[in-house]
């Protein structure tokens, strides 16, 4: 099986069957990471470039490990959007990389839509590793993988996403992904951090986390950026934590066996209390582990789809 597309730009551009294909492929790749020799020869001789215009440790490392476990050659390029100031545009940078015969470019960019613009211009496959507040598809897929692994299904589950929805690409990709898979998605945060017309993406909006968590099978917390308080979006960390943070008391409102998720990096004691982050329901580290398998699946299926695997 393979993905019949050149690029993976967002969950918005995937069919449900394609999502299922990625998840089932990831299931078989997960075993590779448990071997003594954590490598399969699938992509020997392929060149993949991690092109990161925004600082990232977790996602970059996860993609790098995924590529290496598939035996591809991967190089990391960390650039900054200031290369525009130096006179080189995004497209020029990418075309230069492609001129060195890359097969696939994994892009992280602070501006929404940048990978889409790249994908239109390049022959290489493009994987969106997070663009602005738009999408972070591999995160949503690894979250889906983790939920399926733990709870056996996604269809019909109540899933609450709590925090800064407005600025979160993780929230958008998860809303799209979970909806496609038949879950009931609830979002929650102060109205300043809920973007306009989000209901049209098929979610229910809550202002009280107690209401959003009530009977939830999964609670996903989002990182709150302290800088946002400067633009008047909330008064401060203390109040945010009190009204929107996830503590044990709020966890108890959820269903027995609830999964607590967080895309990381977490602000301990801000959006999530340490007892919850390290508690028995937390699957935060499973998410990280599964990220490698899911990214192996994405890379493999895209390469296979183009007949290069």
């Amino acid at each position, binding site marked *: 099986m393979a993905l019949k597309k050149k690029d993976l730009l967002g969950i918005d551009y995937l069919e449900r069957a394609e999502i299922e294909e990625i998840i089932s492929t990831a299931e078989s790749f997960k075993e590779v990471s448990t071997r003594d020799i954590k490598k399969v020869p699938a992509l020997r001789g392929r060149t993949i470039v991690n092109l990161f215009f925004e600082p990232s440790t977790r996602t970059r490392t996860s993609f790098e490990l995924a590529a290496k476990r598939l035996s591809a050659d991967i190089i990391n390029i960390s650039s900054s959007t200031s290369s525009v100031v130096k006179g080189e545009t995004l*497209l020029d940078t990418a075309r230069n990389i492609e001129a060195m015969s890359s097969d696939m470019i994994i892009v992280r960019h602070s*501006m929404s839509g940048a990978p889409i613009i790249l994908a239109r211009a390049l022959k290489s496959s493009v994987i969106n590793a997070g663009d602005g*507040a738009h999408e972070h598809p591999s995160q949503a897929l690894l979250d889906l993988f983790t939920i399926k692994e733990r709870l056996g299904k996604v269809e019909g589950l109540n899933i609450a996403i709590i925090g800064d929805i407005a600025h979160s690409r993780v929230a958008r990709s998860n809303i799209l992904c979970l909806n496609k898979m038949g879950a009931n998605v609830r979002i929650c945060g102060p109205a300043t951090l809920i973007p*306009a*017309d989000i209901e049209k993406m098929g979610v229910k909006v809550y202002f009280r986390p107690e209401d959003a968590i009530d009977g939830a099978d999964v609670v996903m917390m989002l990182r709150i950026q302290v800088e946002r308080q400067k633009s008047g979006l909330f008064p401060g960390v203390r109040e945010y934590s009190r009204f929107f943070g996830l503590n044990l008391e709020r966890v108890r409102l959820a269903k027995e066996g609830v999964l607590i998720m967080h895309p990381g990096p977490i602000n301990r004691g801000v959006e999530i209390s340490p007892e919850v982050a390290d508690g028995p329901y937390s699957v935060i580290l499973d998410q990280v582990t599964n990220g490698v398998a899911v990214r192996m699946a994405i890379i493999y299926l895209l390469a296979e789809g183009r007949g290069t695997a």
Partner: protein
Amino acid sequence: MTLIIKGGRVIDPANGTDGIRDIYIEGDKIIQPPKTKKTSGAEVIDARGLIVAPGLIDMHCHLREPGFEYKEDIASGTRAAAAGGFTTVCCMPNTNPVNDSRPVAEFITGQAKKAGFCKVLPIGAITKGSMGTELAEIGEMAEAGCIGFSDDGKPVVNAEMMRHALEYAKTFDRTIISHCEEPALSAGGVMNEGAVSTRLGLRGIPAAAEEVMVARDISLARLAGARLHIAHVSTAGSVELIRRAKADGINVTAETCPHYFTLTDEGVMSYNTYLKVNPPLRTEADRKAIIEGLKDGTIDVIATDHAPHAASEKDVEFDLAPFGISGLETALALAMALAHSGLIPMAELLRKFTVNPAMALGMAPPSLLPGAPADIVLIDPETEKTVRPEILLSKGKNTAFSGLVLKGWPAATINEGKKIEFKL
């Protein structure tokens, strides 16, 4: 007699003419039909099947000279204007230097005369450098030919400054054109705020950013008893505010641009930077309200807001691309769709390109009566053409309408009695 336009459907909105006539031109003027049938020596244009109307007026465009000649210059912009059926265009002052003084205004009109494609009436800046802090020399610029005043591209943020601008411009019988945008609400925004911006994760510009300033400026126009023109209306709320102001007898006129009655923010779904414009493309409900406003006369004028940019500037991340659509050459064809679909009668549509902009600027309405200047457009209402960037004469190939088939295009433009050749 030098030129005869024979057999066309003459639509002259200023005096209600709509019928088949011949137009006779001597030099740069329209003249009485001669008593004899002898027309020897005169060039004859066969206008059968064509509409003959006064040359169009675009009261809002950007010609980029001085300072940004790589985007457009006055010669290329006015040639594009002529190709679009315009014989008069008003260029906004956000050049470098800003048109905030007599020398810049005179430079612009001088360049336009040299090019000779159409007339250019500059819009002067309201404040020095369009910085919003000190009034520019509006009196002297008016003397130098500036027909109206605006800090277009930037709003006049300080309400007292806007009040003074309205009062001071009134002293010289000039209109203030307001770019309505509350910058605190629009800061960092790149498209309309709504379902699409949420989906795309792009920073939105809410309709309220425009509407709060429309409301403010209407109040100030009432206070000052001055003539106010609202530029590029894009929201249903603005249409409603202007409708109410007009009912209250406030001296306010308004314009919209073809993209606001043709496109919506749905088009941005592909991160197409060629649809990035300020104010942004709004929702379908807004688009319908704009058409309603055009129909009931709330919106007086169709202007282009022609904003040419170089391809290298548009082919970047959505956040980094400049705002603006190259619009001089497609405006009439886009507007013709409103007439073809029966939404707005042809004569009324042409009024919004001719009589109404003139009135909004306090100018004599153009007409095709004997004695009037021979500024005329011939329109072929039936011809169909596909918009492609490479057919544009403007240096700005940044059309938002590439691939669209439009029906009804200018067939010829006569400026001061001369047929303009716009082939390159």
